[in-house]
């Protein structure tokens, strides 16, 4: 598979009165054509900021360094005018909150037409036709009538469908979906995920799915990147991450959630709280909460180590001199 978007050494920090918040610290990620990459992590781990940096949607106090190659172009070096041709046309975003992601003062039709007319150069009538097609595709009933309605006339699930239709409007090659189902009920979530799977199959669009719900990841993703403290700590195929995880944070994450299909057991909580990104801990960001932390973890950040088959983890346990940990044991505990 050909890489579609390659993020290299991305660093993003925000200037605030309290100091620089180092939200993203040296992130490397690749999305291939037609694949679903899930980015998981807790709030504040930098998963959304990574994607917003690539799309250049952050406020002025953000300082972004690094490269993001899309189609051979470095998105971070483009002018604002060139970038506008990419947003919505080549890379589209679907935001988390269907209640605030749409403009309440414009009809759904006007919002759908805007991008279509701008990027595809269609007339208003043609754009309307396309908008109807899109709403049909995402399963909004009576699309002709719905086009003239405002967001408040839609339910949460329907609004999220409209958001997805907006994302699809110009046949983008990559959709970045930031927690697209977090605000929805499970039954509606199932509808939306089913829809996204189907659309991906039909149109071969690559999807970056940002989420903290590991259940959603297991059902949707081809590959998974786990983020913690502004860094990627493990990346691999969905099977590698769920069945052969190598990073202690991934183990802890899998053990902390209950599963519907298992009997009651005590949840293993992760002691402590996520790091303060104003002053992230030195070395590996996870070391203050890690059960396997060693001296070296407190001072040196671990490099990404390749375990073969594109499975990589940033942990000192991967070092040849590290104490041996029975990985299969850690996985079955989860």
């Amino acid at each position, binding site marked *: 598979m050909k890489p579609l978007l390659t993020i290299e050494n991305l660093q993003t920090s925000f200037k605030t009165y309290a100091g620089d918040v180092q939200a993203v610290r040296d992130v490397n990620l690749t999305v291939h054509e037609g694949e679903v990459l899930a980015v998981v992590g807790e709030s504040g781990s930098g998963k959304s900021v990574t994607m917003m940096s690539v799309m250049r949607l952050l406020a002025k106090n953000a300082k972004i360094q690094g490269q993001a190659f899309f189609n051979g172009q470095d998105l971070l070096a483009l002018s604002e005018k060139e970038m506008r041709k990419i947003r919505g046309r080549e890379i589209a975003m679907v935001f988390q909150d269907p209640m605030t992601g749409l403009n309440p003062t414009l009809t759904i039709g006007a919002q759908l037409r805007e991008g279509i007319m701008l990027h595809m150069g269609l007339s208003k009538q043609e754009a309307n036709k396309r908008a109807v097609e899109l709403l049909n595709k995402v399963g909004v009933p009576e699309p002709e009538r719905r086009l003239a309605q405002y967001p408040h006339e839609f339910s949460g699930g329907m609004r999220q469908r409209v958001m997805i239709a907006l994302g699809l409007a110009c046949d983008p090659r990559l959709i970045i979906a930031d927690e697209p189902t977090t605000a929805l*009920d499970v039954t509606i979530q199932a509808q939306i*995920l089913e829809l996204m799977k189907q659309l991906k199959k039909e149109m071969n669009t690559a999807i970056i799915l940002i989420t903290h719900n590991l*259940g959603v990841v297991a059902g949707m993703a081809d590959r998974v990147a786990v983020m913690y403290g502004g860094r990627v700590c493990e990346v691999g195929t969905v099977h590698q991450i769920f069945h052969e995880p190598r990073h202690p944070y991934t183990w802890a994450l899998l053990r*902390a959630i*209950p599963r*519907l*299909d298992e009997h009651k057991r005590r949840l293993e*909580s*992760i002691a402590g709280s996520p790091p303060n990104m104003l002053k992230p801990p030195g070395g590996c960001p996870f070391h203050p909460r890690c059960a396997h932390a060693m001296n070296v973890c407190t001072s040196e950040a671990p490099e990404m180590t390749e375990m073969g088959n594109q499975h990589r983890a940033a942990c000192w346990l991967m070092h040849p001199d590290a104490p041996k940990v029975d990985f299969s044991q850690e996985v079955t505990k989860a």
Partner: protein
Amino acid sequence: MTTQGAPLVEVKDLKLHFPITAGFPIPRQVGAVKAVDGVSFSIQPGETLGLVGESGCGKTTVGRTLLRLYPPTDGKVIYDGKDLSTLGEREFLPYRRKMQMIFQDPYASLDPRMTAGDIIGEAIDIHGLSSGKERMDRIYSLLDLVGLLPEHASRFPHEFSGGQRQRIGIARALAVEPNFIVCDEPISALDVSIQAQVVNLMEDLQEKLGIAYLFIAHDLSMVKHISRRIAVMYLGRIVEIADSETLYSKPMHPYTLALLSAVPIPDPVVEGQRQRIILEGDPPSPVNPPSGCRFRTRCPYAKEKCKEEDPKLIDVSKGHGVACHFPFGA
């Protein structure tokens, strides 16, 4: 229901209709949002009953009405054999001490201008439980109980993380030594790693103090984990109630089945093989619920009878109640 002994809390045919008014200058009632429309269940001392359902199904309203944060439209709440619905506000106060609540949003449910110690101490003062040094000792021991430090008593809510704030919320509920706590989505605003901490704390406290919980949540995996029994709500009614293992292994209501099948399981192999029942559309409005069975508009198995007759919650086996004309496996 595994009824050994008398239940601690019993709810009988509870109804709460929020009035819809229209007209100016003299508003008239033109309709009602039937948020809770005939809900009955009971909770044993020291057990956890889970209450699940989609947003808008009335699960939070059940919890709040139970504690009389809303005056019920109809129905009874019986605590330890005493019917609370006939009591006046003053007579109700001692019972409020026995029944407490933990709220969903740890950011909005603590007064930002009060210290953690004052937040916990307020309930102690209202009920006149202790004062002076004894009161402070009590606050310190409560903080210790929920895994916080004595020096945290003088800090303000903004100085705490989400998980710590929820611990303060729990300490506040525990301050008056309740026997029953309504937990309204106590963990949904927290991160995964912190959720496990809070759930474990709640389980430990239950074991230590023998408190009964009504655990309201939409995360079915978590509800199944913490509850002994689970009630599933849809549009103001309980559609199925059973102990948690039975509900998962032998669901009988089509809505329960759909709900369970919609919950993603964190295992790619299991997910790849699962058959989902995708429900069409959204839940109907509780202002004008459908005739007959309320779930029939989205039910893949609805028949003519479902339109005409409202199914009652009937015990199909011991402790397993279903409100459906055509339950599975019956």
